[in-house]
């Protein structure tokens, strides 16, 4: 029993890690709350559904196309809305409100095109899971856990080592100073959106492989990711990973005692506790409240 709960927690944590890292990448570099990230996540699943189920392409072709289109969707938002706003020196609040608007428009577009009912990209019969340490796990869940861990490690390495990764960290640290050193910050931000949105698309597909999809699924998962980011600390990938695992653990151990429909409430109560006691998260640096 306890093994199964721990496994479920690990699994949930791996999903949260991916969405949390993709969100915090964009948040850390652009400094505004990109709500529409939720719909990018959802779009990954629906693009896969479109190409695989409706157009009949094999999964191994449909998934890369879907990830590419999700990345493109994120870049599209950046180019058409966020960049013009940034050029006008709009405050993070304006960008946030615009992203809320984008979220509503795109989520409803998905609802209109595909319908509000649950869609599935799984095929074949449901197999009984493998037995690992007395806990059942389906092969697809193993794939999900591995994909998520590999991607997060790759992103962390890439941020540390590659030239673009370094440029991103420079822009996150001080956009103006980065510009002076010859870094094209708009270009860096565009890349950030591409990678963050691509990752979100992957997360969407993984979730859909496990529990199918609905047009509104994105917001909930995104908020769980955000909770993980806050628990772990903005700007630290190990912190975010830790936060995601802890969140998964808390939610699934909570289910042991109380019914599963309270999982969202558990997550957000943990968030409140953290905001009260340690708003900078586990591994984050203390947030400077003001800069003069």
């Amino acid at each position, binding site marked *: 029993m306890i093994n199964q709960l721990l496994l479920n927690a690990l699994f949930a944590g791996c999903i949260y890690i991916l969405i949390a890292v993709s969100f915090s990448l964009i948040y850390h570099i652009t400094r*505004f*709350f990109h709500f529409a990230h939720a719909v990018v996540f959802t779009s990954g699943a629906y693009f896969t559904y479109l190409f695989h189920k409706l157009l009949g392409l094999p999964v191994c072709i449909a998934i890369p196309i879907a990830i590419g289109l999700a990345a493109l969707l994120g870049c599209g938002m950046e180019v058409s*809305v966020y960049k*013009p*706003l940034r050029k006008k*020196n*709009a*405050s*993070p*609040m*304006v*960008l*946030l*409100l*615009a992203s*809320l*608007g*984008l*979220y*509503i*428009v795109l*989520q*409803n*577009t998905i*609802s*209109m095109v595909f319908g*509000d009912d649950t869609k599935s990209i799984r095929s074949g019969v449901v197999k009984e899971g493998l037995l690992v340490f007395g806990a059942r796990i389906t092969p697809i869940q193993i794939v999900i856990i591995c994909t998520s861990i590999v991607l997060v490690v790759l992103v962390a390495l890439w941020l540390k080592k590659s030239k673009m990764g370094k440029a991103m960290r420079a822009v996150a640290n001080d956009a103006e100073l980065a510009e002076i050193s010859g870094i094209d910050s708009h270009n860096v931000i565009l890349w950030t959106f591409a990678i963050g949105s691509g990752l979100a698309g992957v997360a969407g597909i993984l979730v859909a492989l496990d529990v199918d999809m609905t047009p509104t699924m994105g*917001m909930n998962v995104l*908020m769980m990711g*955000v*909770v993980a980011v*806050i628990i772990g600390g903005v700007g630290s990938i190990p912190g975010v990973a830790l936060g995601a695992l802890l969140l998964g653990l808390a939610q699934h151990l909570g289910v042991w005692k109380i*019914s599963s*429909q*309270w999982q*969202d*409430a558990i997550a*957000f*109560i943990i*968030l*409140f506790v953290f*905001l*009260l006691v340690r*708003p900078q998260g586990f591994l984050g640096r203390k*947030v400077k*409240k*003001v800069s*003069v």
Partner: protein
Amino acid sequence: MTYLLHILIYIGIFSILSISLNLLVGYTGILSIAHAAFYGVGAYAVALMALQFHSPFLVNLVLAVIASGVLGALVGIPSLRIKDDYFIIATFAFQVIVFSILNNWVSFTGGPMGLPGIPQPVIFGIRVSSHVGFLILIVILCVFTFWFSGRVVKSPFGRVLRAIREDEVFAQSFGKNVAGFKVKVFMMGAGLAAIAGVMYATYISFIDPTSFTVMESIFIISIVIIGGAGSLWGPVLGAVVLVALPELLRFIGLPNAVAANIRQMLYGGLLVAFMLWRPRGFVGKYGFNK
């Protein structure tokens, strides 16, 4: 005629919501995504009081406002100390927790089945039952909300709020307790939102959690911003436009399922467009240019 009255009543309810949210968004510069939660708290408070204890309407109204205000303080005190983005997430969290309670605590709130049979208000022995009666009552409450928020923003208290909106550090350097002011205005906003909830519950006589979702909160934010944040008339204008405009879609003859999506896309699209080209809204005085 009944249809027209119905729309006017809705405009009234959303005017109360947006005027109260404007105190936070427009005058203090803090964005809350929990307004629908306070709206819901008001609605459920009045429904439960009336159904369980059969207490009189005016008592329920006052209690609903107090309950919502106290809840506002409980949320505001921890979350208003921290920076903007985290506050927004905290309000989002509160919104989800409230929805989760309304939806899952079936024995108390009726869960997804909602609460039917909420009695009509009786004020000094007069039963409000017709559309006209409701409209009059809502207009009175709307005028009260408008007057109250006018009083607040024109008072020295309101001046401090605007100072916080423009420059928090500056306000603090003058010895103002910024967090304290924010909590107070947040409580006011929450309490006033409950009035709208009370009117909605007694007017429709049935409530369920779907009326008090995050989407509804975003809708109220859109009303404030499109109408014009930081002006007294902006939210009213926004409510008229955003409640009445989708009704026009009915006359084009769109199927109901699509109409709901189009309605949301309409205000989502307007929100993006206004942010891009006119962040002050129609008549607003604050463009979030902190």
